[in-house]
């Protein structure tokens, strides 16, 4: 604990780095996952292949994925972000597709029958109704990104993983403990916060929001 209190500034800086990487990853991942999910939900034939490919990507061990990207993108944040974005796709796309395809057909029929065009139907009906599942997927992706990003420190991407790898090379257990504690607290806090938004979105589509 003494390490943590004596180096709050440094740990805080790494924590911010870690948060920035996570936010960047989730932001980019969502931009990619949303259209892919819509495509997979609209064209059922594509669902299997898309989720299959994303599943295979997810099984690549993180360290080897990072190392694989180094020749092309070099050491540092870029390689880390690319790998993390690829990992996040499975959770985001899968949940988004389940959310979109789980909407009661009669609700969509009513939307069409009222004369909504595709765009209106998406924004007014499908998006809000699938949102809770998308948020659930986002929560999973955030927590897993926070975890895997720790390893990205190994390829000089920074973040709280730096404490762990520095701690291991210098046999400084206080440092390892401080790093682990900070990562865990970050993951738990993120999970809790996102769960709150998820619940609100669920309440909204059940008509329970005051």
């Amino acid at each position, binding site marked *: 604990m003494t390490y943590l209190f004596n180096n709050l500034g440094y740990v805080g800086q790494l924590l911010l780095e870690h948060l920035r990487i996570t936010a960047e990853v989730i932001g980019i991942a969502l931009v990619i996952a949303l259209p892919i999910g819509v495509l997979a939900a609209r064209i059922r034939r594509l669902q299997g292949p898309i989720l299959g490919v994303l599943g295979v990507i997810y099984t690549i061990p993180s360290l080897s994925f990072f190392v694989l990207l180094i020749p092309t993108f070099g050491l540092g944040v870029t390689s880390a972000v690319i790998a993390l974005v690829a990992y996040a796709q499975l959770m985001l796309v899968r949940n988004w597709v389940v959310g979109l395809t789980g909407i*009661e057909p*009669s*609700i969509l*029929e*009513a*939307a*069409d*029958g*009222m*004369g*909504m*065009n595709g765009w*209106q139907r998406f924004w*007014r*009906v499908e998006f*809000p*109704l699938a949102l809770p599942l998308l948020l659930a997927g986002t929560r999973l992706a955030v927590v897993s990104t926070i975890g895997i990003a720790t390893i990205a420190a190994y390829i000089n991407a920074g973040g709280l993983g730096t404490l762990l790898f520095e701690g291991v090379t210098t046999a400084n257990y206080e440092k390892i403990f401080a790093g682990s504690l900070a990562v865990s607290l970050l993951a738990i806090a993120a999970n809790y916060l996102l769960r709150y938004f998820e619940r609100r979105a669920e309440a*909204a*589509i*059940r*008509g*329970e929001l005051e």
Partner: protein
Amino acid sequence: MGEIECDEVTKQFLNEARPAVNQVSFKVDEGSFIVLLGPSGCGKTTLLKMINRLYEPTAGTIRIEGIDVHDLPATELRRRIGYVIQQVGLFPHMTIDRNISVVPNLLGWERQRTDARVGMLLDMVGLPQAYRTKYPRQLSGGEQQRVGLARALAADPAILLMDEPFAAIDAITRDCLQEELLEIQQKVHKTILFVTHDVEEAFRLADKIVVMKAGRLVQYGTPLEIVTRPQNEFVQELVGTRNMLRRLSLINVQSVLNGRASWSSGQALSNLRLNHTVKVHPEDNLRSVLSMFLDSEAEAVEVVDQHNNQELGRITFNDLRAALVENAPKQQEQA
């Protein structure tokens, strides 16, 4: 807008042996209440969905006020046609107010105008104004369908398509809703196309009935025409034209006063007497016995055993009356 004409309309789905709708032609006058009646799989819903272009016909044309619906953008067409479905399909994340406002909002009405319209519609379908802020899941099934009707009527369309709207609703509520729908129709005079497999419902609501079977239009006529001049065995079976009580319910008293003199009833009755050995089985109910009395002019019906045809007794018209008096509901005596 309100007159609908189907001309040789056919819908063939992929991978299906016969067309779901097969060369159906009929014309609907503005402001009339048409019921599409037939067993499940007869194509009535498919036909309905081609009118607002949720399905596109494989062949034939549908015209509204003489304009081929295919020449209109689908979304624009649908905003001008009210649509009510069995599962109601209210948007669960929207308040009742926003649900009803969907089409006016799509049409870009001003908030004030939509607001007034929603208030008026809630009154019309018999829901309190306080429901505006409620959500669909807080409402009963019957109330939800009232909202469904209000939503369909929101932009004051000339045409209303209703796909088995009351089929999933309990019998007592369904009765009320049918009654109210007729009352609403008295006020708004929409052209209504109403799909049902429920014969009672069809006869209660329809100005004219389209009877369908296996994709074909079998008969198109008023309820009375369908009962008195059924096209074939199928129509007879479906609507139970042999059921005297239904026939009675379709003829009003005035028409008896008007027509009585000209009826050659003497001759008709003597024809009936010819087949007056009427037999019933012990487990038949008195409704069918009454129907037989009306049909046969017989003084009494013979009760025979179902298996060996042995006579068990006779029932007269007076027995029916006596049975009713004996089994009349009695008021509980108050203490």
